[in-house]
């Protein structure tokens, strides 16, 4: 095998982690598990559930925007819906999706370890996630009604509104705690649990991406934690720290919020980039081009991404000097992302490309993410930003990088690792059809927003001028195409889960360690701790014993 050697063991001895005997039976064998694979699966179902909820809310929002004025809901409802859509998507889906689901499941396996460093802490993270989610849902049906501040909770409105901000914000705080503990767990796992021969530069790039992500999680999340606590204290006791009536400065709130929330977008995108770096070599049958630059650029993005938060505040009244510096740093952060895109495309070059469903999603990602990234530069430049700030252009950019980046790659990862996680194969043809639908629907939905934003359509507005209607109608129709694609995709996977063909251990000819164990993996991941002798994407050795499909 290319990547290392594992002593041969009789196949009969293997019982996968679903069927292994545990102390607790039935549902408790899941709820009290400390196995990273089971925790990953539990995250997966929670995350997909919340994605579908927030997606439905998004569909309703688009439906409301079909005509100017009231289509079928009141303005206050619309405000609550866009807040909910943002909060659920960001805190319950995008941030945990790739690290908590695929990171939990695959990081230890890719490192040749048997679990994360702190398995019990890992389970605690999952419970904190669930508690945060329950609190967020409770806040909808209690107190002064559904929060209407937008996901940014800007003061002073968030301390004045009578809606249930405190509980929602506390939910976000608890979710932040879950994120921190996961990050802490992953960093120590990567430092301590790499198998023999797995040097830093033999780690799969997904592990590198998670390493960079985890550092951001550990170093940025506490700042939002304290900021959110201050909002709660402000609402409860009127301490005055963010209240302009008492001498507080709302601008400081914005700084504090974005000191976390800008690095947070890299928490969202870096793991996705790691997945791309796994999928492309596998389906190009070629080692990755520029392994070291890709690994280091993850760290560079994490580092520079920490210093650019001010670009969210160009029109808030910060000084010209700081605006220029933040703008310059914003351009810098585009460089490491560019390096990655360049290396991925260079990996494809002269590769033996196989366009499977995961690969199709990845190609879609490169197309969409490039648009998203380049429009980010338009927003990062001071003069164009003043024209485009708080318009649909920002909304479009955000969805191109976040949904087009993280969301699409979540689908890619789901298809790439589905055979390994569940031991079943899905219908490839249907999966590809869904990917095409998603690609078309996505661009129909979000591209008109660039145009609308450029023409001056403000974000978060309930009503609009009649001349924008043609774009809104187009986008709304796009949302239907997109959603039908997503539904087809999930149904296809659900059918595969129920009666898919049994998956071989290595259906794609992957070279990283997760493909060297059974599908689904055994409880201990490997019968024997593997020893690694080469880099992660070495396709040079012919894998005669690999069963292709």
């Amino acid at each position, binding site marked *: 095998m290319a990547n290392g050697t594992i002593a041969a063991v009789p196949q009969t*001895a293997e019982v996968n982690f679903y069927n*292994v*005997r*545990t*102390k607790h039976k039935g549902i408790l064998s899941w709820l*009290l598990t*400390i*196995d990273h694979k089971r925790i990953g699966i539990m995250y997966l179902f929670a995350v997909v559930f919340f994605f579908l909820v927030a997606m439905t809310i998004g569909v309703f929002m688009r439906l409301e925007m079909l005509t100017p004025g009231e289509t079928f809901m009141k303005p206050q409802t619309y405000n609550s819906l866009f807040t909910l859509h943002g909060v659920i998507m960001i805190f319950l889906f995008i941030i945990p999706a790739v690290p908590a689901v695929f990171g939990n499941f695959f990081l230890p396996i890719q490192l040749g370890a*048997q*679990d994360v*460093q*702190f*398995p*019990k*802490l890992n389970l605690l993270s999952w419970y904190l996630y669930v508690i945060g989610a329950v609190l967020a849902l409770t806040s909808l049906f209690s107190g002064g009604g559904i929060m209407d501040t937008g996901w940014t909770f800007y003061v002073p409105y968030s301390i004045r509104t009578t809606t249930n901000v405190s509980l929602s914000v506390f939910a976000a705080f608890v979710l932040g705690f879950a994120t*921190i503990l996961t*990050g*802490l*767990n992953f*960093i*120590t796992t990567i*430092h*301590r*649990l790499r198998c023999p021969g797995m040097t830093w530069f033999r780690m799969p790039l997904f592990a590198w991406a998670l390493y960079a992500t985890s550092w951001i999680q*550990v*170093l*940025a*999340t*506490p*700042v939002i*934690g*304290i*900021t959110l*606590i*201050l909002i709660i*204290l402000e609402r409860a*006791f*009127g*301490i*005055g*720290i963010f209240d302009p009536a*008492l*001498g*507080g*400065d709302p601008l*400081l709130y914005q*700084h*504090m919020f974005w*000191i976390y929330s800008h690095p947070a977008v890299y928490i969202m995108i870096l793991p996705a980039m790691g997945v791309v770096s796994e999928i492309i070599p596998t389906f190009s049958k070629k080692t990755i081009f520029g392994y070291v630059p890709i690994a280091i650029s993850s760290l560079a993005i994490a580092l520079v991404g920490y210093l650019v938060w001010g670009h969210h505040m160009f029109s808030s009244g910060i000084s010209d000097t700081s605006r220029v510096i933040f703008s310059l740093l914003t351009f810098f952060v585009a460089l490491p992302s560019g390096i990655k895109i360049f290396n991925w495309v260079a990996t494809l070059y002269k590769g033996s490309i196989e366009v499977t469903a995961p690969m199709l999603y990845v190609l879609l990602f490169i197309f969409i993410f490039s648009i998203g990234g380049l429009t980010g530069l338009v927003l990062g430049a001071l003069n164009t930003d003043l024209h485009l700030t708080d318009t649909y252009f920002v909304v479009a950019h955000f969805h191109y990088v976040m949904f087009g980046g993280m969301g699409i790659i979540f689908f890619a990862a789901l298809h790439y690792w589905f055979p390994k996680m569940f031991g079943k194969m899905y219908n490839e043809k249907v999966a590809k059809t869904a990917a095409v639908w998603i690609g078309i629907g996505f661009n129909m939905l979000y591209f008109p927003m660039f145009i609308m934003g450029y023409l001056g359509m403000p974000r978060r507005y309930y009503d609009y001028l009649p001349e924008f209607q043609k774009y809104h109608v187009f986008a709304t129709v796009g949302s239907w195409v997109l959603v039908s694609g997503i539904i087809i995709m999930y149904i296809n996977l659900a059918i595969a889960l129920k009666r898919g063909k049994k998956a071989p251990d290595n259906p794609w000819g992957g070279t990283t360690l997760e493909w060297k164990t059974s599908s689904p993996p055994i*409880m*201990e991941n490997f019968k024997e701790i593997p020893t690694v002798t080469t880099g992660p994407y070495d396709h040079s050795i012919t894998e005669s014993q690999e069963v292709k499909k």
Partner: protein
Amino acid sequence: MSYNSDSSVQEIQEVHIHRDDFGSKMGMWLFLFTEILLFGGLFILYAGYRFIYSEGFAAAATELDVLLGTINTVILLTSSLTVVLAIVALQKENKKLSLFFLWVTVICGLIFLVNKYFEWGAKFHHGVYPKGPALQNMSEGEVMYFGLYFVMTGLHGLHIVVGLIFIGYVMRQIQKDVITSSNFQKLENSGLYWHLVDIIWIFLFPLFYLIH
């Protein structure tokens, strides 16, 4: 987590409960980073508002009792010393002495909290609390000073309570011989946490009590 006594399953247990003191300490240090950043957010706000309202801050700072603050500082520093002594004592296999030093630490922590209670109580008595009557006649800077004072010392006090719970748990484990001279990482980790609480106070004390 324990599994069935089945021999093939027995392996799993060993897998999950491996001991790695270095890794455990590393996890603790990472956690301490997050704590520093949590307070770091507040220190940034303090710096920002001190810059805007330097006169108000100077005026409000004179209302704190420097003597009480100094006593509390000495108490906390002493407790940090006793935690270290407890670790050394355990390493030298003197369980009794180790527990004694941990008791001293806990008592120091409790005295600190009692002092804080009287300090806060006196402020409340004079109407100095968020939205309190005394704050109505103060400048914006003074209001901000007391807002930050209550939030920062309050959060710090909460950390003392958490630290005491950690130490209490560790003492129980020492009594039960779970934490021993060859397996004392939990004690060291709670010691690290206690030092962090101490260090944060070392910054809070001059910022609120000494700079006028």
